[in-house]
């Protein structure tokens, strides 16, 4: 027995132990990022993982010959499965119904493989050490590895590498153990050439994964979002990102916050209820933008509503908010209601071709931060939409912040007026957005503040709306001009005003 070999094997124990715990931590962290409720997630992950390790240990007795060969195979497999686990979990998260199966399946598989490692190793070493010496050494290194892992994971790995890179890094370490074993025991291992090349190929594959993991969830992206990203996807139209921290779920489109689950009710109640409480007979509603279904959730609280037509450019958005458990819980299955028709087209051309009349129109587009979206804030667009509004109907337009961007806000107001609308500007405070503005537009000239509101609203009430209609001096009307297709002044104002605060 060469001393060098025993040191090598004990170093392997150390690495194996570290890797094993790292995979467990990664799975637990990922599950709590993605599914929330970290206590439950960590508890079940640890339970399943330890149980699987037990299974692995139990299975180990069925391995009788060529133990070293089996050990190397297991190492390569652990490295591959563990290394790619977080990537796989990120990628399959979108189809949430099967996500838990994939999650626990992966954890069990990794657990079984990790559970195999130590018994196999001990049996390999049993002829080379005295038994009490062996047990003491292996378990010492096993627990030291666990300690190291539990310390570096939160302090170094997550902040500097992130979940995905960490997984690949430890996957490579696992495979490296296999490769070293191949080289050192080349005379004792059957089919050593085959195993060696398998190890090298796996190592290269994991290294490529490590290098390109930014493509999966871009590192720069993770840095620009303060909360953990649990979902990201580039559609033909935008980059959708969902972050979650505690109970705060946030949706970002192209890096711009769309809502925070903590206070979105303030925004959506303010957007919908001043309109619908004033229209007790409204039956057909048009929503443009708002593919998250949160505005629709508020609309469906009125039993007299018969149809809701939702026009949102991005199919992926409406699909996500129809299928993802967590998001469906947030919008209360609004997009799955039989009353709703989802149309995934460009709003401008669609509206131009329509003739159906709606009792209320909710315009919830992204902010006019570029010339493309800016078209949806022009007099031309508003005059098209006006044709679709019932004579007594009300349209409401989300109109950016009258506090941060007063010129932009009052430009929207002026533009709406220019096509013959009477307008009712109002605003409220949404903590994650700041002070936010809306404008109701209608053909009739009188808007009466509704006396009553639906039971169960968390924010809107009569005194609340009365207060929202008042504009203090720092948000008061400023002179503005009309935003036209051939002179998109709104985009310029918006950029100027927001660049000061961002």
């Amino acid at each position: 027995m060469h001393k060098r070999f025993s040191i090598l094997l004990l170093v392997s124990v150390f690495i194996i132990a570290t890797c094993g715990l790292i995979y467990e931590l990664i799975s637990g962290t990922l599950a709590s990022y993605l599914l929330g409720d970290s206590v439950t997630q960590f508890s079940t992950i640890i339970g399943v993982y330890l149980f699987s390790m037990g299974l692995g240990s139990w299975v180990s007795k069925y391995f009788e010959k060529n133990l070293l060969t089996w050990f190397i195979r297991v190492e390569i497999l652990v490295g591959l499965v563990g290394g790619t686990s977080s990537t796989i979990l990120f990628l399959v998260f979108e189809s949430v119904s099967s996500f838990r199966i994939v999650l626990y399946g992966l954890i069990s598989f990794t657990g079984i493989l990790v559970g195999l490692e130590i018994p196999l190793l001990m049996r390999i070493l049993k002829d080379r050490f005295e038994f009490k010496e062996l047990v003491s050494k292996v378990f010492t290194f096993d627990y030291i590895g666990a300690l190291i892992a539990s310390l570096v994971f939160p302090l170094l790995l997550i902040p500097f590498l992130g979940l995905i890179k960490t997984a690949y890094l430890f996957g490579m370490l696992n495979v490296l153990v296999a490769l070293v074993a191949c080289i050192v025991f080349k005379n004792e291992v059957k089919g050593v050439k085959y195993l060696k090349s398998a190890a090298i190929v796996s190592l290269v594959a994991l290294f490529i994964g490590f290098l390109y993991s930014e493509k999966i969830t871009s590192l720069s992206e993770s840095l620009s979002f303060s909360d953990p990203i649990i979902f990201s996807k580039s559609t033909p139209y935008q980059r959708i990102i969902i972050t979650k921290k505690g109970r705060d779920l946030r949706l970002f489109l192209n890096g711009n916050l769309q809502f925070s689950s903590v206070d979105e009710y303030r925004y959506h109640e303010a957007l919908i209820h001043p309109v619908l409480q004033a229209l007790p007979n409204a039956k057909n509603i048009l929503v443009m933008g708002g593919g998250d279904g949160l505005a629709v959730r508020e609309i469906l609280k009125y039993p007299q509503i018969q149809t809701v037509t939702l026009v949102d450019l991005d199919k992926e958005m409406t699909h996500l908010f129809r299928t993802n458990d967590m998001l469906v819980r947030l919008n209360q299955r609004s997009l799955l209601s039989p009353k709703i028709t989802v149309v995934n087209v460009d709003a401008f051309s669609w509206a131009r071709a329509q003739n159906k009349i709606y009792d209320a129109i909710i315009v919830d587009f992204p902010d006019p931060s570029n010339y493309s979206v800016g078209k949806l804030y022009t007099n031309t667009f508003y005059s098209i939409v006006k044709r679709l509004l019932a004579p007594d109907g009300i349209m409401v337009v989300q109109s950016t912040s009258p506090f941060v961007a007063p010129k932009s806000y009052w430009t929207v107001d002026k533009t709406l007026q220019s096509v013959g609308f009477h307008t009712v500007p109002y605003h409220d405070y949404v903590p994650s957005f700041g002070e936010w503005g809306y404008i109701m537009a209608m053909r009739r000239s009188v808007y009466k503040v509704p006396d009553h509101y639906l039971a169960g609203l968390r924010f809107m009430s009569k005194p609340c709306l009365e207060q929202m209609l008042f504009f203090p001096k720092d948000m008061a009307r400023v002179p503005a001009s009309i935003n036209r297709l051939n002179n998109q002044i709104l985009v310029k104002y918006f950029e100027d005003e927001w660049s000061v605060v961002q």
Partner: protein
Amino acid sequence: MSGQSFNNRGFSRRSFLVRAGLVTAGIYLSGCIRKLGGGKGSYAHITGDLRGPNAKAGHMLRDKVVFPEPVNIQTVKTLIIGGGISGLSAARWLKKNGENDFKLIELEDHTGGNAYFGTNSVSSYPLGAHYITIINNEDQQLIDFLHETQVITHFDDHGLPFYNEYYLCFDPEERLLINGHWQNGLVPDFGVPDKDRQQIERFFKLTAQYQNTKGSDGKYAFNIPIDESSADDTYRKLDKISFTDFLKAEGFDSPYLLWYLDYSCKDDYGRHAKDVSAWAGIHYFSSRRGKAANADPNSAITWPEGNGWLMKQLRNMVSGHLMTSHMMYSLDIKGDKVNVKVMDLKKGTTSLITADNVIVASPQFVNQKTLAGLHRPGVDYTKMNYSPWLIANISVNKLPSPEKGMVLCWDNVAYGQPSVGYVNANQQDLKVIEEKKVLTYYLPLCDHEPRLSRLAAYTRPYEQWLDIIVPELEQMHPEITPHIERIDLWVWGHGMISPAVDYVWGETRKNAKQPVNNRVFFAHTDLSGISLFEEAFHQGLNAAQKVIDKNHGA
């Protein structure tokens, strides 16, 4: 062109042959080097075709092919030759005035002239003229046409036209790549030193002054249509010197200003500032005074297919009268009839059309061949210079981002480049996200005298055009090459008349406008001296009006 090379024909001819030989040999040699070097390299993925106006028919005229004697004889009261904007406008005016007995023949298998357009899977795109600007308010006839076609939707309380908001060029309109940065607008500004800015300001003060100046006859010094301009010699004498000489005399020497003015001449006339008259150079800046209810003066009005959209409106008004793929090859006046011989290019048959009046709305370089038997006193065809152009419609799946400065505009120009930039054919798209785009790139071939550039253009194969276009695009948008899917090229050998020194107010144009025997009337922008939709529209309308007056008088 100063005109000098034409006065000394013998010398000019030899020099031309030598230079033509050098240029074409260069193109062939470069083709050989390409082949040796292994072909197209990084452009290998770019497909497309190289087209232009019907060359075969043109060569039949040039080579004096013997045509079979016509068997078929038709009679029509008025015959219009040429289906560009001038011819179509003449047809519309006849029809509008109750003159329904007319036909229009066009050599190409489509009407449109240089307002023609193309279409691919991404978009329609212009192949030539691509916009008009806000029309001068006193131009009632054109305003009426634009109102008929809903380009002007209505008039406000002050009588100002309200232009259709789908056709007014969407913002953002223009950007210039200068000193490594895309600036807003085309007048050089970013990184331009103060003394240059002062000159630029002084130049615009001067043109603003000319814009509102009237001559001793009470007419504007510079106007559209051009023949509505003042006859006052104070201004007309500016036609006797080149724009460059005028600028020198006025003390303008800022390279930024001179670049911008040279760009403007290339953009509107297809020639450098040194090759157009000072009168024409100033006309570009000082002839437009149009006011709109809902747009700034000088705002552009445009469509994906460019002026092809306006052309289609005209065409649809007279559709029953059009005979495309018909070429006139001879015309002579017999008593009170005009006999026109026409070949049907599709069938290969000829026919004789006998008309009371003919409106010749084809360009004079064609008339030089077809009207060989017609006496037009004082018309020197060699004084008419036509600028050759290359138009490239470039389909890209995206533009590399991010860019420094201004985002993609309708008109995108790079400082100091041979081309006059490209327009985004999809500017008027209502979609929030366009996935693919067609960029229409305009390259005036103005570095040699027109006929030399024309010869070189006809010789140059597709791949060698890419050698000019793609590097320039790369300079504007690094890394764009992999995003280019298609480049369709269109060569205009005679793209537009150029207002060379002494052309607009010289003898040739004056004489060429004259009808022959009060039976053959002429209409074309080469009889205006500048190639604008407005000019073509009035050219056609005026010729048609002469026919109508004659018919009513008779």
